[in-house]
C-alpha cells in the first residue's frame, strides 16, 4: 500500500473493516430523501443507506432496480453528518466506481437491486471505498470476503417486514462457524470444498470462531424486539430498510429500534421502548412472494 506525502495509507483492509467496527451496536437506516435522512440521524442512526426506493416499494413496483440517482445521494450527504452508504447492483463495478466518485462511505453490493452479472461479483479489492455484501450462508460470506468485502450482512428477505429469513441466514452462518471451530485439519479441507470458499479463510474462521470482518443483519427487521432477537443471536449491528419509513410513526419507531439494539439483552428496556410505536409495516408471508431477493448472488 502506497503512502502519500503526509505518510498516510488509504483504503487498507484495516481502515475498511475499521469503519464497520465503528458501526457495531448501531442501526443503519434506509432513506430515500434528505428529510428521511434527517429523521434517521435525529433518531440516532449510525449511518444511512441512500436509496431511490425502499425494498418494499422495489418489490411492489417491479422493473429493474438500479443504483440511486447521484442527485439523491448528494442531497442525503448534504443533510447528515453520519456515514452515507449506497447500493450498487451485483457485479456492476461501474456503479461502484460512480458511488466511490460521489464519496459515499460504504458501498452495498446488494441483491435488493437487479443483478448486472450472473456469474461475477465486483472485485472489491480494486476500490478505496469499503464494500458490504449480503450472504445467506457461510460459504457465500467467505466468497464475498475473498472478493474484498469488508463487512457481511445476513440477507434476510428485504422489504417483507418478516424476520424469519434473517433468522435463518444468521443461524446458518453462525452455526457453520461453530462447527468449524471443532473441525480437525482434514475436516477443514472438506469444509472448504463444501463451502466453495478459500481454504485459508476457512482456517482463519476456524481459529477465530468468527468471520474476519464484522457480521451485521438485514432483511425483515420491523420492531425493537426483532432487532434484539438478531443481536442476541449474534449479529453485531442491524440494517433496517422498509421497517421504519413504511411504519405509521417512523421517528418514534426509529428511536426505539436504536435503543433496542444497544440494550438488546435488557428485557425491561425492550418492553419500555416497545410501547406506543403505532402500526408497524404490514409485512409479507414468505411463501406468497413472487421474487426471493436472497436467492440473488453466487
Amino acid at each position, binding site marked *: *500500500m502506497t*503512502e502519500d506525502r*503526509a*505518510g*498516510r*495509507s*488509504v*483504503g*487498507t483492509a*484495516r*481502515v475498511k473493516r*475499521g*469503519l464497520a*467496527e*465503528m*458501526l*457495531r*451496536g*448501531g442501526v443503519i437506516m434506509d432513506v430515500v430523501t434528505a428529510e428521511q435522512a434527517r429523521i434517521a*440521524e435525529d433518531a*440516532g*442512526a*449510525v*449511518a444511512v443507506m441512500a436509496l431511490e426506493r425502499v425494498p418494499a416499494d422495489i418489490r411492489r413496483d417491479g422493473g429493474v432496480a438500479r443504483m440511486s440517482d447521484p442527485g439523491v445521494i448528494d442531497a442525503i450527504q448534504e443533510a447528515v*453528518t*453520519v*456515514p452515507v452508504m449506497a447500493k450498487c447492483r451485483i457485479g456492476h463495478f461501474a456503479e461502484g466506481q460512480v458511488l*466511490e466518485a460521489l*464519496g*459515499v*462511505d*460504504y458501498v452495498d453490493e446488494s441483491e435488493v437491486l437487479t443483478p448486472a452479472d450472473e456469474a461475477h461479483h465486483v472485485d472489491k479489492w480494486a476500490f*478505496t*471505498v*469499503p464494500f458490504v455484501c449480503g450472504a445467506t450462508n457461510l460459504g457465500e460470506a467467505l466468497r464475498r470476503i475473498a472478493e474484498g468485502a469488508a463487512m457481511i450482512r445476513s440477507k434476510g428477505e428485504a422489504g417483507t417486514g418478516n424476520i424469519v429469513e434473517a433468522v435463518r441466514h444468521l443461524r446458518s452462518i453462525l452455526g457453520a462457524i461453530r462447527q468449524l471451530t471443532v473441525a480437525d485439519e482434514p475436516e477443514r479441507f472438506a469444509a472448504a470444498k463444501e463451502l466453495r470458499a478459500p481454504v485459508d479463510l476457512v482456517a482463519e474462521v476456524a481459529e477465530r470462531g468468527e468471520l474476519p470482518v464484522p457480521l451485521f443483519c438485514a432483511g425483515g427487521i420491523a420492531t425493537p424486539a426483532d432487532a434484539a432477537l438478531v443481536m442476541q443471536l449474534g449479529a453485531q449491528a442491524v440494517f433496517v430498510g422498509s421497517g421504519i419509513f413504511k411504519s405509521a410513526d417512523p421517528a418514534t419507531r426509529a428511536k426505539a429500534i*436504536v*435503543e433496542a439494539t*444497544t*440494550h438488546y439483552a*435488557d428485557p425491561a428496556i425492550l418492553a419500555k421502548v416497545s410501547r406506543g410505536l403505532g402500526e408497524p409495516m404490514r409485512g409479507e408471508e414468505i411463501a406468497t412472494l413472487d421474487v426471493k431477493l436472497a436467492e440473488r448472488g453466487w
Partner: protein
Amino acid sequence: MKVGVLALQGAFREHRETLDALGVEAHELRSPAGLAALDALILPGGESTTIGKLLVTSGLLEPVRERIDDGLPVLGTCAGVILLATHLLDGRHDQPTLDALDVTVRRNGYGTQLQSFEARLDVAGLTGAPFPGVFIRAPVLERAGPGVEVLAEHDGHPVLVRRGPVWGSTFHPELAGDLRVHERFLHQADRQ
C-alpha cells in the same frame, strides 16, 4: 484495578479485548449501575451523535460527567475525544458533551471514509517502533488549550493529548494490535 468501557455503541469490544490482553478487569458500562466501582473509564470510537443520544437516554451523561469532574481517569478515542471536548465544530446542535478536555475538535476533519488512513506515529514516552495509527473518519484537533499536553502529532495537528487524568486520541489504539497507549494510560491512572 477495574476499567469501564462505555458499551452503548461502537468499537467497545476491541477496547475490552485490549484490556483482557493486559490482564486488566474490564466492565462494559451501559447503565449508571457499576459506574461507582470503576477506577478508570474508556470512551470508545463509534458514531459520536449516536453515543451522545444513548448517553442521555441511558441516564449516564450526568453521572459520568460528575465522576470525570471528580478526577476519574478517562481515555476517549475518536468519537470518545469528541464527547470529551469543550469545543466542537461540524457537530450536531444537540450533541451532548462531557466538557472535560479543553480542545477544539472538528468532526470528520479529514473528510469521508475515502480519506480514512493509517500512519505511523511518534508518541512521547513510548520506546521502540512508531505506533500504528488507525484513523477512521477521524476528527481533527484544531486547538489544544493551556495545560493540554500533546503526546503525538500527525501532519501538524495533535492526535494524542492529555490533561491530568483525561486522555484523548483521534486515532484508534484499540485497532492497532499494539497495547502501548492503553498501557501508558493505565499506568498513569493507577498512580492516581
